[in-house]
């Protein structure tokens, strides 16, 4: 390279990426920080003290107390756990076998079925809502765990993701198992399922996130407060008398956001892997 660049310009150029990233990170984290800070402050301070830290512990405890008692938040979160777990179990058990059949077996109609799966991937989840609601209403099954879980029992994405994963599983191992006399079902349960942990973990993070965060379907299907899920709970909270108590509101938000945040931070690697397995290849 020819003449040395002017030191000031060079240093600014090197600094620029950092500045942009710090600004970006501030944008990304700012709301969380604000939320937690506000949840720890008394009402009077909230509107005046900006980003300053809280001074006493009392108001913080009050806020969280209101949050936990103003609406049954813990009950909502428990419902969320039950619903997400139930959905995930059914999704994985049905998807594993279907994905194996699509990936490793040949049969008439395989291509059509796979095309249907691809089509289904593009359909938004809110589209089937009306008829399913009507059917559940007629069956008297509204406002139940079953109603909350049913539409999500089958997952196009789960079948697709696991199929991609199984496609890369070595045929030789499967052939060897067949020669040993194992049935196809035993092959799935004994060989592929144990090896598919990364894909299943990736899918699980997607599934749990999507269903924990879902508002549309629970909004439609839940009729009494005891069956609400976390997002619904937040809505009730906001519509209730505590709707203007921002300290308590932020405390509630913190409580609701914390579990998923913790899970995601641990499972971040799986989430990224799952995304890589589908969209980028």
């Amino acid at each position, binding site marked *: 390279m020819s003449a040395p660049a002017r030191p000031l310009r060079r240093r600014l150029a090197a600094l620029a990426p950092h500045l*942009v*990233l710090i600004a*970006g*990170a501030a*944008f*990304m*984290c*700012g*709301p*969380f920080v*604000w939320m937690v800070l506000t949840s720890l402050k008394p009402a009077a301070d*909230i*509107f005046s003290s*900006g980003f300053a830290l809280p001074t006493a512990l009392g108001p913080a405890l009050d806020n969280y107390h209101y949050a936990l008692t103003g609406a049954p938040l813990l009950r909502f979160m428990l419902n969320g756990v039950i619903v997400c777990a139930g959905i995930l179990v059914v999704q994985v058990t*049905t*998807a594993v*076998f*279907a994905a194996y059949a699509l990936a490793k*077996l*040949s049969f*008439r109609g*395989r291509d059509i*079925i796979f095309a249907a799966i691809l089509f*289904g991937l*593009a*359909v*938004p989840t*809110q589209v*089937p*809502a*009306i*008829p399913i609601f009507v059917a559940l209403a007629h069956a008297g099954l509204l406002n139940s765990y079953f109603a909350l879980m*049913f539409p999500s*029992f*089958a997952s*196009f994405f789960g079948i697709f993701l696991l199929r991609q994963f199984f496609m890369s599983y070595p045929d030789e191992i499967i*052939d060897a198992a*067949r020669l040993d006399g194992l049935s*196809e079902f035993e092959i799935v349960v004994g060989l592929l399922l144990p090896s598919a942990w990364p894909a299943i973990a990736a899918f699980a993070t997607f599934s749990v*996130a999507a269903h924990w*965060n879902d*508002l*549309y379907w629970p*909004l439609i299907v839940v009729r009494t407060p005891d069956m609400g899920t*976390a*997002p*619904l709970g937040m*809505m009730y909270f906001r519509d209730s008398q505590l709707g203007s108590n921002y300290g308590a*509101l*932020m405390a509630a*938000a913190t409580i*609701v956001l914390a579990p998923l945040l913790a899970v*995601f*931070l641990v499972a*971040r690697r799986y*989430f990224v892997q799952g*995304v890589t397995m*589908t*969209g980028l*290849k």
Partner: protein
Amino acid sequence: MSAASISAQTGAPAPGRARAGGGSTPYLMLAPALFLLVLAWFAPIALVALMSFTRYKLGDTGLDFIGLANYARAVGDGRVVQAAGNNLIYAAMVVPASVLAGLGFALLINGRRASRGLYEVLFFLPVTATLVPMSIVWLFLLHGRIGPINSVIAWFGFAKIDFFTDPKVVLFALAVIEIWHLAAFATILYLAGLTTIPRVLYDAAAIDGERHPVGRFFLVTGPMLARTTVFVVVTTTVTALQVFDTVLVLTRGGPMGASDVMLNRIYVEGFRSLEMGYASALTMLFLVAVLVVSLVQTRSVERRAADR
């Protein structure tokens, strides 16, 4: 590859993929998933299509077919037109901003060595956020009187902005929340995509004389990110079109429909007014729009990538 080679070597019919199905096994394996898919997806989609031609209200005993009347009504329904328009404006704001911001942040983070891990975590946080509680946080942040953003605006000498009650600004305020959420998502996706680019291509570019970072981007980085870009653009667009949570929690479609969106229309018509026939027609319109947009985007980005 192995099945074919086995059959080539032994002359026997190959096990594995080439085998003409283990009789009923594949169908048995598919049955549970397919059954549930039909029950929860394919049948309902067909029913929605069917119901869109009827006047069904919850509680009716039969289906009263009225042809295309629902669709005609939708096209003439001012609120539906406004909602559809809002969806488009909203997507037009959210998608380019999120995708470009995501790409930019990813490129910058990818260049860091020491701080990379930290930024990866920080930029991942919005992706984890449940939108309903997060909307309430943003409600406070952007509050017309007591929000900190407005405090900063006032400090600069401008008038405070009523983000959620001013019809001219409300869609923009909702878009900011979505961009916050989706730009982080795009950043993570692009970061993953960047790791798939072989380092050696940059070596070749250096030897070939490409010394500008911009030139390097167009020679190596950009083209190698083509598949990632398709994925990011399509998922961002579909997510933007499905906006609902923020609208319901923060504005209920107001003020005066300025932030109304299709899913909100469907919800209100179908589950508040219980006019399910009409809501089904709206749902079909919504579905077709999403499918068309996904298809067009997938084709056009892939075609552009193949041209170069």
